[in-house]
């Protein structure tokens, strides 16, 4: 039986509801309708009263979840699109993120964010938001790239006592399939070597892992062996795995689908140079989306985000430095 990335998210939520009395789901259209992406399809019927449709009130949705979480529940909030979490930004960053440090009481909420671009989605249904939340203290940011990780990281996120922003990539929802969920998951906080190599390391996460592998496969035909590291979560950031990889390859490309200013790739590069400067045989490079809103037209969109071609080009630059 094969499962897609969205199946994995569905299954994880179903099991969480079955296994734990304290889990409930809250979000727009997630009840009878099963959610904009069908991540909760059938769950209301199976778990009556524990899957609740919310008003279009992202701020209050998260505020409510925080209240429930400090009262012993483990809510999973679905944002219809990650882009709309901007309305909940204050509750996530200033309320959930600060709560444990201020009061000693943790806030076990999981906010599911359908992230990332797909053709024709435009500026407000395509955003990556991991940088927004990772910048703020107290928020864990999971960024699964595989079907198994979507499943395991979501289950783990809900078990964690701290707020987790769970960045799902919409492009992977139905396109990415696996025949079997990995029975031995890595814990959240550990990166994975998706593809071993020795000439350069690409550190990336979410959908870009697959684009990096594509670029690496092409370069393999030319004899270059590119290592691809999947961060799995951008906060915490597993620097041990990253540094070990850079130690092997001597070259680093930090790759992400987010906006270029600041963010994951800047954080990765800065930490690598601070901790492993001597390991580098060439300047570490970055590749991100362009510094404009995400365009609607598929041709513009394809050029806005990194592609196997642009990654390849950047890797060639890196290998020639």
């Amino acid at each position: 039986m094969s499962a897609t990335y969205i199946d994995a998210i569905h299954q994880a939520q179903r099991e969480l509801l079955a296994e734990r009395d304290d889990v409930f789901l809250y979000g727009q259209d997630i009840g009878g309708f099963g959610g904009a992406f069908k991540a909760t399809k059938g769950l209301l019927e199976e778990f009556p009263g524990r899957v609740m449709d919310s008003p279009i009130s992202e701020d209050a949705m998260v505020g409510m979840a925080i209240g429930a979480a400090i009262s012993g529940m483990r809510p999973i909030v679905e944002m219809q699109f990650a882009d709309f979490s901007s309305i909940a930004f204050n509750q996530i960053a200033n309320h959930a993120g600060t709560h444990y440090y201020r009061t000693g009481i943790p806030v076990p909420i999981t906010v599911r964010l359908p992230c990332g671009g797909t053709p024709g989605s435009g500026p407000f249904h395509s955003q990556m938001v991991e940088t927004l939340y990772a910048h703020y203290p107290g928020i864990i940011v999971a960024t699964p790239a595989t079907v198994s990780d979507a499943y395991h990281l979501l289950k783990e996120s809900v078990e964690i006592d701290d707020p987790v922003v769970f960045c799902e990539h919409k492009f992977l929802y139905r396109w990415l399939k696996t025949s079997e969920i990995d029975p031995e998951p890595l814990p959240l906080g550990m990166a994975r070597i998706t593809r071993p190599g020795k000439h350069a390391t690409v550190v990336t996460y979410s959908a870009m892992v697959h684009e990096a592998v594509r670029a690496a496969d092409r370069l393999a035909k030319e004899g270059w062996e590119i290592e691809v590291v999947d961060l799995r979560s951008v906060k915490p950031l597993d620097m041990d795995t990253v540094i070990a990889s850079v130690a092997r390859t001597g070259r680093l490309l930090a790759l992400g689908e987010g906006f270029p200013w600041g963010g994951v790739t800047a954080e990765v590069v800065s930490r690598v140079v601070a901790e492993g400067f001597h390991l580098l045989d060439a300047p570490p490079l970055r590749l991100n989306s362009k510094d404009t809103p995400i365009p609607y037209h598929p041709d513009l969109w394809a050029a806005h985000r990194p592609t196997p071609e642009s990654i390849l080009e950047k890797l060639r630059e890196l290998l020639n430095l």
Partner: protein
Amino acid sequence: MESSAASAPIISGRLDTDLIRRTLRVMIISRTLEAKLSSLYKAGKIVGGVYLGTGQEAFSASLGCCLNQEKDIFAPLIRDQAGRTGFGEPLIEATRTYLGSALGPMRGRDGNIHRGRPAERRPAMISHLGTSVSLVAGMLIARRMKGELAEVVGATCVGDGATSTGAFHEGLNLAAVEKLPIVVLVADNQFAYSTPRERQFACENLVDRARGYGVTGREVDATNLFECLAVVHEAVKAARAGEGPQMVVGKLLRLCGHGEHDDASYVAPELKDSKLGRDCLEIGIQQVVDEGLATSDEVDLWKSEAAEEVQEAVANAQTDPAPDPYQDDWQAFSSKGINS
């Protein structure tokens, strides 16, 4: 709160035949265009999504047609093709934006309903619901400061779901404090995507909110063209006369899916069969013909003219160039020399 039930709307003291005829024509054009957009989507020619206003044309068109295209501001939302057409948006702007043409107002950078020409007082909505209310308030405040507010009305539309947003609340409250000539139409179409009104708000009627903002509230059977025109016209007139913000709540049913990907199977058959589920276009045609404001033949002519106009707008947009990523300047700043 007032509610009008008119058979033929008496507008400005007389039956404004031209306005009624124009509004009905706009409704026909809108319905025709949207049907075509739906086919294009289903044929895979439009990517992303298509969002229709089927069943909401009378309400939306009434607003577009009651506004002054030369001076007023109109910030439409998802289901306002009719209002846009009524306010003068050329059909080609819709087709170009949906098809991602480089020549459209959004040049392929944004799509579908996210379009407009702000310089022509037609803001281009962002997706985040409720944001247009404060935006229009600001456009009006600018005019007031420049001494150009006389006779100007700013209008915007939201759905029942959008009233739950903080942005809607903050925006309407701000507009009320400033006593701005704003008209806010709330299309209470029973659903926000799949979410029924009981999960969206707990008041009996959204018009009950008007008083709490210090705003005049009106309610209307939005399946009824004559009633829509009468009440919306009244609201626009009141705003223009300096009576401050006006809210009009239209009761109706969305007669399509949230988008064309959605079969709306969550809408109960009883609701579709109820008074709310009536088709405002059929009712409107009936009203106009019954009152002798147009003949059936005229209406048929309008329909075939609409089909032609739509066909042309689609055909033209389809031959347009696509945006070229190598030509795009990829600049989020207008200022020269600002590199990020």
